[in-house]
């Protein structure tokens, strides 16, 4: 029931509703539904049948989800979301940012416009939300078909073409919106998200009505709520409010209270849902009933999805819905998607709003919230009361609304059906991508509803998993098989779960486990000789993220786990925690599903349909008022720095991105420069020009002026610009060669400690003065030593202690080291390591002599300045009883056994966690992990991002091997090896890595493999393991024998600790493709471009040929290697040079003059010239596609076969023998030798 599309709607809607009067609304609805049913039923086909829901959900979900979520969130908190969300969307899809906001209205408008709503339609949500919602839904249905296509859940959205209907609506909406809502300036984050918004946008338009309505309504309310935080929100809020008001204007009742509306809307929706339920109820409920009851944990979730899908199949209408439905079906996901959609927009924008709490607070808050949740009234109390008395009103209106709604509903239904019918057609249109979803959903449908345990057990069998497993277990003799690489980059293995669980499981990009089948006992784990651990990328830029605003964040009472898709609903009122197995009550507020707007379907809530959600936290989760975004830049201006010339480029970049710095109106910035003294800058508003204050007493640093050094960016923008313009010239004559970095950092700490925030340090040499001064420890003669490498650890604990102080004051320190000399990164990096900062290193940086580094610096800086940021964050990782956390890897301070303190959190850093099994997991078939990240967004909202991963527990060694994730294992081992090399020594770490391979092969041979083969036999799932380990041993961080500068080695180690898995794997084992003979076979078709998919090649020189051109993707950098006899057509068409000889040796590192002359529009991303030839287009399409989801854009270097740069290319060919390292084959023989010992 809920499963169907409604959930989607509900999800988005629900949020807003949830926040408010859901509880209240529900009752009326119930009443209503009974009445309405009769009328409703006709539509029933539509509603009554689960299919409808499905269809709705699907479409709505996407579309709605985005809008709805956004709105919801918005409703709760702010226009910001809207703006943000909208902005991105607008930018991408629609020209008008307002449209998105409007979008909802448009959706609603067309079908339902009939009633009240033209205005409403746009605003519908606002006033008559309930009715509107209904309307919206109905319209949606109609519209959906077209939208449906668009509404792909995740990124597929893009595929969908907007229906013709849209334009008019959109225009209207746009107009309205434009008039109503000023387009907010897109935040930095926004651009990232636009894609999401798009899909959502269309969907949103449909759903948008709902969501928008909600959002609008909420938004309208919101401002009231906002009251306190106004500054932050103010910008967005006004916009939202205004739009809402117009809508309200139309509908007086709605005006009553936005919240009310929301409630009303929900109520209406609920009514519908109820109806639906009634219809469905027999069907779906029953199914649920079984499921829920039967299900141990995940079951509850599954049933819903399953039912919807089934329903879809059953009824033609559903089929229509299917199109939509598939989305919806596809998941709870669809519902979630809907939520997520809105959320996504918010999420991207969301960064704007949020509330964080400290974990402790969270917990406390959670408790309180849970208690509050109990009653419906409480909900309104918190927010409504804040909003300003809307609450009381809301109740009555909601009733009215429901009544009204019913009529609408009736209207809607008839319409709806047609729409559905249309839907199928649209389905046909739907892009192939849909198929995926569709299939998934079908599978679900087809499956019976066994108990969870059964499901999990049978999962493998049902969906062809067994085949996969068999394939994963196929013994591979490494000495015989030469071609191990798959044609395409390796994907994360899928856990052997039921399709239902798979669908809702956390994305492997966010949350990955080294063993996708968890061994039951530590003994089994030891037997497998594989490490158990998690790889987390919790603050990743997401395209879709359900954002939930709710008064009650439902959590387990004993272990504080957030409710998630893998809990079990024992019945309507109780749920069983999947981590500690405690049975908890379902709070009243949670009974209302904002997505489907129905009451009594807790398992359809977005929290239960999505494994990645974000909650807007209440004040319970705050220890202090959320801090504003505060940025301090600490700049080295010594002679060395002036020589390197970074200052000018930094100032340029910051000037350019000043408006894109994440933050709101409270954002504060400050600057501090240092050489042998420390210079502060007074930027107090009202000064005619910046004042420099010099403190020369570096032994006892004091802050010369307390209020004027960190200034409000908005108020003092002119002064800041002045300073940035004049700064490079001010020190151009500096002769001071000393660097007092330690005292400067102490000053920065004092300056920032009242607020917390981010300190960005630029350093170009070894600190030589004051506290924290360092000596050169590197012996250049030892760079290529094969014995141990010394000085990998810090020389002093000054930086570590300072970092801990910073962490305690919520200050994150990011370090940019641009040094051509040894600067003791091992010591300096501590300042970032323990304050959850990030480290950037540009060896041999010089603005003239090293253009490649300069370009990289500029690109990194742009990303760095504009990327999302979360402040005063904590992350807690919980796992199923029996599992425990052993060690964390990454940049953070560990505050307790499962709690990380992150002064700043950024979207580009990842974490690794080693786990151990303390108690047997025999009493459960599933193991779950939950990471909750509580942070303050740059808009001053506390938010909690929750990721939940669910994996099967197995008791057979072969199953453990079948589920092994070789990439995750490699990354975890790399982290462990780094730790080992610092705490012990490098050769120990290298030995440990080799032993990992030996152990695996031995364990597999003695325990699993029945074949008495000689040679190295490993399961197919681990066939790349020895190769990856060999590649690891050849990395800068761990190699010996090859000359490696200490700083570069230490930096490589830092990268290992913080890079997300995908990026790390590309660095360790780059992808190699042949470029000169790309065919369109198997090419991807994205939008209008064809992206060829060349096969991966082994990293060996034997795979290269003189007559070819090869691309190596190393993550940070691309190398395009041109063979001596390379096809001239390729050189001419792609590089724009007449022949091989004329290819400039340094092409790519800088924009080649040739390319710039020919075409001024050289893409910033790739420096391959933009030529109009088909070959060039294909190459560039492929390059752009590769770069698509990378945070930091990669530079491309063209390497000629005879150039000296060849060495940098060839050092990445890890399968070949190098001067000091083994080839792959030799390595295998070495392993074999070790085994026989």
């Amino acid at each position: 029931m809920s499963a169907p599309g409604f959930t989607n709607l509900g999800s988005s809607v629900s949020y807003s509703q949830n926040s408010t009067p859901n509880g209240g609304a529900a009752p009326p609805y119930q009443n209503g539904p009974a009445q309405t049913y009769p009328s409703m039923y006709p539509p029933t086909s539509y509603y009554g049948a689960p299919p409808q829901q499905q269809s709705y959900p699907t479409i709505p979900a996407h579309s709605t989800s985005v809008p709805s979520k956004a709105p919801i969130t918005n409703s709760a908190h702010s226009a910001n979301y809207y703006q943000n969300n909208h902005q991105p969307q607008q930018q991408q899809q629609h020209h008008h940012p307002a449209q998105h906001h409007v979008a909802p209205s448009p959706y609603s408008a067309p079908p339902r416009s009939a009633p009240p709503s033209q205005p409403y339609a746009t605003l519908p949500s606002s006033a008559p939300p309930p009715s509107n919602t209904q309307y919206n839904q109905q319209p949606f249905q109609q519209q959906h078909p077209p939208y449906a296509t668009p509404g792909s859940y995740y990124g597929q959205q893009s595929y969908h073409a907007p229906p013709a209907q849209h334009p008019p609506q959109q225009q209207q909406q746009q107009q309205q919106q434009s008039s109503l809502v000023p387009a907010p300036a897109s935040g930095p984050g926004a651009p990232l998200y636009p894609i999401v918004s798009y899909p959502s946008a269309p969907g949103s338009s449909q759903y948008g009505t709902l969501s928008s309505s909600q959002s609008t309504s909420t938004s309208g309310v919101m401002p009231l709520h906002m009251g306190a935080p106004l500054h932050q929100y103010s910008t967005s809020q006004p916009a939202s409010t205004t739009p809402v008001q117009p809508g309200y204007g139309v509908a007086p009742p709605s005006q009553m209270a936005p919240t009310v509306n929301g409630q009303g809307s929900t109520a209406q929706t609920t009514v519908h849902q109820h109806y639906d339920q009634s219809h469905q109820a027999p069907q779906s409920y029953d199914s649920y009933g079984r499921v829920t009851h039967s299900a141990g944990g995940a079951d509850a979730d599954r049933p819903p999805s399953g039912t919807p899908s089934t329903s879809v199949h059953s009824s033609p209408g559903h089929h229509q819905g299917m199109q939509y439905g598939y989305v919806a079906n596809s998941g709870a996901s669809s519902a979630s998607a809907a939520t997520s959609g809105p959320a996504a927009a918010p999420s991207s924008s969301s960064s704007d709003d949020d509330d964080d709490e400290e974990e402790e607070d969270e917990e406390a808050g959670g408790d309180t919230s849970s208690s509050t949740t109990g009653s419906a009234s409480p909900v309104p109390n918190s927010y409504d009361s804040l909003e300003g008395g809307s609450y009381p009103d809301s109740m009555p209106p909601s009733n009215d609304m429901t009544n009204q709604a019913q009529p609408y509903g009736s209207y809607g239904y008839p319409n709806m059906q047609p729409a559905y019918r249309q839907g199928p057609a649209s389905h046909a249109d739907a892009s192939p991508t849909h198929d995926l979803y569709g299939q998934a959903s079908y599978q679900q449908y087809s499956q019976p509803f066994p108990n969870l345990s059964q499901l999990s057990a049978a999962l493998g069998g049902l969906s062809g998993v067994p085949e996969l497993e068999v394939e994963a277990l196929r013994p591979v003799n490494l000495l015989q098989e030469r071609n191990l690489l798959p044609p395409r980059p390796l994907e994360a293995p899928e856990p052997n779960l039921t399709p239902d669980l798979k669908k809702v499981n956390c994305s492997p990009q966010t949350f990955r486990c080294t063993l996708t089948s968890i061994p039951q006992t530590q003994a089994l784990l030891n037997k497998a000789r594989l490490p158990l651990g998690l790889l987390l990328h919790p603050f990743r830029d997401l395209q879709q993220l359900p954002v939930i605003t709710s008064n009650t964040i439902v959590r387990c009472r004993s272990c504080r786990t957030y409710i998630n898709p893998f809990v079990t609903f024992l019945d309507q009122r109780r749920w069983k925690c999947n981590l500690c197995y405690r049975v908890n009550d379902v709070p009243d507020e949670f009974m209302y599903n904002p997505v489907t707007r129905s009451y009594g379907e807790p398992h359809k809530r977005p929290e239960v349909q999505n494994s990645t959600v974000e909650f807007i936290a209440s004040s319970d989760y705050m220890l202090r008022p959320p801090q504003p975004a505060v940025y301090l830049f600490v700049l080295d201006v010594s002679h060395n720095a002036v020589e390197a010339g970074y200052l000018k480029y930094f100032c340029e970049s910051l000037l350019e991105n000043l408006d894109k710095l994440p933050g709101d109106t409270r954002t504060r910035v400050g600057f501090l420069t240092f050489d042998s003294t420390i210079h502060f800058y007074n930027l107090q508003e009202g000064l005619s020009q910046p004042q420099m204050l010099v403190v020369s007493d570096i032994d006892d640093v004091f802050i010369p002026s307390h209020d004027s050094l960190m200034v409000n960016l908005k108020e003092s923008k002119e002064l800041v610009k002045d300073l940035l313009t004049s700064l490079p010239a001010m020190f151009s004559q500096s002769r001071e060669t000393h660097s007092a970095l330690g005292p400067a950092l102490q000053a920065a700490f004092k300056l920032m400690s009242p607020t917390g925030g981010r300190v960005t340090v630029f350093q170009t040499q070894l600190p030589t003065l004051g506290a924290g001064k360092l000596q050169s420890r590197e012996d250049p003669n030892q760079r290529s030593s094969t014995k141990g490498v010394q000085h990998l650890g810090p020389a002093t604990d000054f930086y570590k202690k300072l970092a801990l102080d910073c962490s305690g004051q919520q200050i994150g320190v990011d370090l940019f080291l641009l040094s051509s000399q040894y600067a003791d990164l091992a010591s300096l990096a501590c300042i970032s390591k323990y304050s959850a900062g990030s480290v950037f290193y540009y060896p041999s940086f010089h603005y003239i002599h090293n253009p490649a580094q300069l370009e990289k610096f500029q690109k990194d800086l742009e990303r760095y300045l504009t990327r999302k940021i979360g402040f005063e964050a904590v992350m807690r990782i919980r796992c199923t009883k029996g599992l425990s956390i052993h060690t964390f890897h990454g940049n953070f301070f560990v505050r307790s056994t499962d709690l990380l303190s992150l002064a700043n959190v950024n979207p580009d850093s990842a974490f690794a966690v080693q786990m151990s099994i303390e108690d047997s997991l025999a009493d459960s078939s599933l193991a779950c992990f939950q990471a909750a990240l509580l942070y303050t967004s740059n808009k001053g909202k506390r938010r909690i991002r929750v990721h939940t991963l669910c994996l099967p527990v197995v008791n057979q060694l072969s199953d453990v091997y079948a589920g092994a994730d070789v990439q995750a294992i490699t990354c975890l081992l790399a982290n462990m090896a780094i730790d080992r090399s610092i705490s012990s020594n490098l050769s120990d770490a290298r030995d440990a890595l080799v032993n990992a391979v030996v152990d695996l092969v031995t364990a597999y041979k003695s325990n699993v493999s029945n074949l008495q083969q000689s040679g190295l036999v490993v399961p197919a799932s681990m066939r790349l393991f020895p190769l990856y380990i060999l590649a690891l041993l050849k990395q800068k961080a761990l190699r010996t024998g090859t000359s490696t500068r200490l700083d570069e080695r230490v930096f490589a180690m830092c990268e290992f600790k913080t890079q997300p898995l995908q990026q790390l794997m590309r660095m360790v084992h780059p992808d190699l493709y042949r470029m000169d003979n790309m065919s369109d076979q198997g090419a991807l078709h994205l939008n209008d471009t064809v992206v060829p998919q060349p096969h991966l090649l082994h990293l060996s020189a034997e795979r290269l040929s003189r007559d070819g051109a090869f691309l190596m993707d190393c993550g940070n950098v691309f190398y395009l290697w041109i063979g001596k006899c390379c096809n001239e057509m390729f050189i001419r068409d792609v590089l724009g040079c007449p022949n091989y000889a004329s290819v400039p040796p340094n092409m790519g590192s800088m924009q080649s003059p040739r390319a710039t002359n020919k075409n001024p529009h050289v893409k910033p991303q790739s420096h391959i010239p933009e030529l109009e030839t088909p070959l060039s287009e294909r190459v560039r399409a492929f390059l752009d596609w590769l770069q698509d989801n990378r945070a930091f854009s990669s530079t491309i270097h063209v390497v000629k076969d005879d150039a000296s740069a060849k060495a940098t290319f060839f050092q990445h060919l890890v399968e070949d023998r190098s001067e000091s390292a083994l080839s792959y084959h030799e390595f295998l023989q070495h392993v074999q030798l070790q085994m026989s010992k």
Partner: protein
Amino acid sequence: MAFTFAAFCYMLALLLTAALIFFAIWHIIAFDELKTDYKNPIDQCNTLNPLVLPEYLIHFFFCVMFFCAAEWLTLCLNLPLLAYHVWRYMSRPVMSCPGLYDPTTIMNADILAYCQKEGWCKLAFYLLSFFYYLYGYGFIFTSCSSALRINDSHRALVFYLRMSNM
């Protein structure tokens, strides 16, 4: 005097070992609190680190005393711990202040488990050595006093001590 230097050493060691036992108990409790999330590792390290050197010095101090008193057996029993203390302090993380515990690594499960185990082992060692010193004190006192006509009350005490030591 019946009260030889060796007897004085044993008596002093007895008292100091009692203090060390309290140190060990404190240590165990502290790490247990860390493990159960009750304490912030920074605070905990700040309270534990100042106690490390005093403990080592106390132990070193009565080792020197036994050396001076030529109590070779007792010294040999204590030498392993002395060597362990030296090694432990030599291999401590880079720190500017005295102490052993680094708040950034203390939460590592391996280190935490190691420290807990170390605490229990030390507690056991100190308890055993406490009774050993008690016995040694009684033994020396008896032998001295028998030679020097010690009064009955002393003898009774020694007997009692011996009994309690059984």
